[in-house]
């Protein structure tokens, strides 16, 4: 190793700066708070439109869903001016995201089929509303958790 002419205190300061900059990137690249209720609301509205079984409602609902989804995702993409490094998310973070999605799908299907079996009206909408509610309630904690996973990862090449 080349012997640098810096003190341990300035090395510690440099490491603190590196940590701070990484935290800055992670915070800036997480999806915003409004994303989850917005996406949940769109899913519920679209499912309800399908479940009316009226062609014109389905047509209007489909177009509104496409426009709404494009607006929500587009807004996130436009303000997205850096992509967090995949090594920060890591296997642990990727598994967390995959399990989260699977649980949401299972919740939607399970609630929908249960509502249908119970003879309730609008079973798919009930399933979607449950999922939308779960997304709204857990989206922010999920982001907090992923933020913690990414910011506590060892610096440099450490995995």
């Amino acid at each position, binding site marked *: *190793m*080349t*012997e*640098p002419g*810096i003190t*341990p*205190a300035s*090395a*510690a300061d*440099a*490491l*603190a*700066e*590196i*940590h*701070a*900059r*990484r*935290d*800055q*990137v*992670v915070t*800036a*690249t997480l999806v915003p708070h409004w994303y989850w209720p917005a996406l949940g609301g769109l899913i519920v509205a679209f499912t309800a439109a399908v479940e009316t079984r009226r062609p014109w409602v389905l047509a209007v609902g489909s177009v509104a869903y496409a426009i709404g989804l494009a607006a929500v995702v587009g807004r996130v993409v436009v303000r997205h*001016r*850096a*992509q*967090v*490094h*995949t090594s*920060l998310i890591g296997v642990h973070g990727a598994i967390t995201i995959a399990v989260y999605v699977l649980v949401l799908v299972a919740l939607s299907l399970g609630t929908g089929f249960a509502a249908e079996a119970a003879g309730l009206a609008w079973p798919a909408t009930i399933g979607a509303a449950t999922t939308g509610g779960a997304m709204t309630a857990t989206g922010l904690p999920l982001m907090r958790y992923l933020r913690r996973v990414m*910011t*506590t990862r060892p*610096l*440099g*090449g*450490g995995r």
Partner: protein
Amino acid sequence: MSTPRFDELIHAPTRLSLVSLLAATEWAEFRYLREQLGLSDSALSKQLTTLEQVGYVEIRKSFVGKRPRTSVTLSRAGRAAFDGHVAALQEIVARSGLTVLPGG
């Protein structure tokens, strides 16, 4: 774990902040880096040119619609140099018995 190698080029304060941001990203837009670091266009360009000349960053210019977009990526060599630099800093700190608190 990387081999400790102190890198004078990366350690300069502004470049340390810049490379630290880039190390946490797959890519970052020029505008994003400028805002996060509080630098002028010319100051950031100068730092990026220095890093590009030694092969630490790759700069890509493209268009999104009619808007020009400049994105910056830390190259493989840049990432290896950064990892080595972090390991060197950690070694210096470890030898002294100091500790670093993340976010401090």
